């Protein structure tokens, strides 16, 4: 397997390894000889799926398209094909699976849009895998909540260590969690609204579009921060739980 060369500019067309014909980058099969095309350096999951760059997606339709493309690319169907076609099938299937995973989830869909629109990534951190240090700078929109919560958490921790009543502490923790939960809900509504706004802006000026993308990116950063806050509340709640009883 020879690694594909990586030119500085994205490739505009693909070349069929079978017949040499050129094909647009979003084609999957050669328009001339209908063989499966090598992937080349593709970067846009939307266009790979034949979808416009919209953020509100019909899940059922996306799923159908995924199954449909799987049926066209899957290595199962290329066992007797030439080596280049087998490789192309492997590449396209992998890419399809990656693309589907990214587009299926509204948040990773936004992240992908930001990436292909040229905005630096606002990488989401899964709270279960991140060690919590991901977003170190507090987003300005959250300063008040973060300040309040940290104070609360410190007090609860202190009280727990000096033997405070766990039930009462759990209750305090619950009430400390409320504003964050509310913030998150509000936040989700904003992300939805911004996504819909982006979809309406197909004809808008570049500056207007850019403003929406910037707002989306800002929301994603905040979202990461909120998730980390919720994770730290969960960790604290965990340490308030009575020790798990050993089973007989």
């Amino acid at each position, binding site marked *: *397997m*020879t*690694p594909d*060369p*990586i030119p500085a500019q994205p490739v505009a067309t693909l070349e069929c390894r079978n017949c040499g014909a050129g094909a647009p980058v979003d084609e999957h099969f050669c328009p001339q000889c209908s063989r499966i095309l090598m992937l080349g350096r593709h970067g846009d999951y939307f266009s790979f799926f034949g979808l416009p760059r919209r953020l509100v997606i019909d899940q059922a339709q996306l*799923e159908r398209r995924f*199954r449909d493309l*799987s*049926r066209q690319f*899957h*290595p*199962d*169907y290329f*066992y*007797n094909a030439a080596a280049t076609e087998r490789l192309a099938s*492997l*590449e396209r*299937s*992998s*890419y399809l*699976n*990656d693309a*589907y*995973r990214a587009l299926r989830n509204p948040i990773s869909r936004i992240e992908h849009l930001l990436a292909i629109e040229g905005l630096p990534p606002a990488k989401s951190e899964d709270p279960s*895998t991140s*060690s919590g240090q991901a977003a170190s700078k507090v987003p300005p929109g959250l300063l008040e909540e973060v300040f309040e919560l940290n104070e609360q958490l410190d007090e609860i921790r202190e009280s727990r260590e000096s033997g405070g009543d766990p039930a009462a502490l759990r209750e305090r923790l619950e009430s400390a969690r409320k504003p964050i939960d509310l913030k998150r809900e509000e936040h989700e509504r904003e992300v939805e609204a911004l996504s819909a706004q982006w979809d309406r802006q197909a004809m808008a000026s570049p500056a207007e579009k850019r403003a929406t993308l910037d707002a989306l990116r800002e929301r994603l950063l905040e979202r990461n921060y909120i998730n980390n806050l919720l994770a730290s509340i969960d960790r604290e709640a965990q340490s308030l739980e009575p020790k798990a009883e050993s*089973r007989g």
Partner: protein
Amino acid sequence: MGKVVGIDLGTTNSLVAYVRDGVPQVIRDASGDGLVPSVVSLGEDGTFFVGREAQRRLLTAPSRSVYSVKRFMGRGIDDVRGEAELLPFRVGGEAGGVVRIGLDDREFTPPEISAFVLRELKQRAEDHFREQGEFDFEVDRAVITVPAYFNDAQRTATRDAGRLAGLEVLRIVNEPTAASLAYGLDRRDRGIIAVYDLGGGTFDISILKVEDGVFQVLATNGDTHLGGDDIDRLLVELVLRELDREQDPSHDAGRVLHSRPAEDIQAIRKAVIAAKHDLTDVEETEIRLDSLDYRRRITRGEFERLIRPLVERTIQPVRQALADAGLEPAEVDEAVLVGGSTRVPFVRRIVSELFGRTPHSELNPDEVVALGAAVQADILISGRREMLLLDVTPLSLGIETMGGVVSKIILRNSTIPASGREMFTTGVDNQTSVDIHVLQGERELANDCRSLARFKLRGIPPMPAGLPRIEVRFQIDANGILSVAASELRTNIAQTIEVKPSYGLTDQEVERMLIESFEHAQADIEARLLIEARNEGESVITATEKTLRRPDFPEIAAADLQPGEHEKIQSALDALKQVMGGADRDAVRDLTHALNHATQHLAEVMMNRGVREALAGKNVKDV
């Protein structure tokens, strides 16, 4: 082109199946038995027994008979030390390397042992096709199933076993997914299926979404060391404890003495398995061991109390798989039972409770995986597109970064094929190579994950530190097996990658084993021929010595033998006896001939005397 079959290479039993006229069927022996016990035994004369015969030898030659080798596939000796204790055969290997199984004075890796089972299945299928009058009966390709939760090393070991058996492994398929294919044949409807697969040695749970003939795995989870074997071990330990207590009533009931002979352990194992099977149908049975003068009643209730902790270990993986699939138990439309251990009524009850519905078990749980493998084999060779299996990788793939932390590149439950990229650079000026450690697992630290491979990226053009941009691409194929490619983006130079599997065999090792297995096949024939030659020599020696020892021999020699004939016989006899212990088959054969020749006249003399004596002793009237 030869035939393509589907193979379920199980911990306890293996099966081979194929599709005829669109219908998958298990290939059975003359007695209708589809199961080939996954047991390999080395005979005293150096020949191998596989399957039922090897299984019988578990009782008579336990230290030369290997079972449950699947548990050792793709593993290191450090992983299996604990469970190797109760096994009657030798389990060894170097620290950090693959497990080696000792039989007599030979050593085998788990793929080599599995290859014996695969060869047996291949043979069974070829016999079957020959009997069917097929002109082209050779079986050269196969789809082989593995537990969904098998990691890269375990999958690769399975593929190596196939290669060693002379089979091109078209695809490694996950057992629960294969089972769903077998079940899905008649039901093209849509829905969420949960496949609960508790076999001899492994547990898998897979959640699938079926729509338009596409079987898409949403999530999978499991435990590669949980199955019927563990149930058997609990029962064996129960019996051992009681036997210990009988001998010494003060003996601590919690401890088991491991000092029993292997024969006893195997006899106990056989007896408890029989009792376990009984308890599927009856409420009470007996564990009976005549050889140890032991018998004991056991009720289903007691059995269930004993195995409850084991069976409950399946609950957490089921919950995790559902959570990963983003589903509640109530959203599962159908639950399917796979694996012999799902015959245990208690297991069925647990599954019913988990999903709130009675699970499917219409297809024989022992056979359904092989049937599914045959269906997949048929899809691959026929190019039929009405059914498609989209499986996932069970474990996250990552690389070790600074401080021993794992950076995940491909997350678990990603649909395969899947790919991932990671950028690397250098830390020192003019550094031309970078070490990369690939791991599989969900934990944060490299030490807690499974080491898959270490490799060196070489040939990086000399540049100031931090300048090279090396892109490493990881590709998991449809078998769930990893390959790696890399290039330096500034210079477009592809890197050489030497992947050294942490718990696997290199391609060279597999090649060498292939050659060795041919040599051994030859050696096995040699061994058999030598034994035959020795047997023949032995019988000539015995007959000759018997005659020479006769009290009347001096008299016979004086009367009937030529001068010097006795000496000639004696020297031929001595010469043969000299080579009998050696391995030179030709010498044994030639000297046997020589002794035969030297004693030919003597034999005639003795025969004539015998006839005369016989006549002399009898009345003339009787002649």
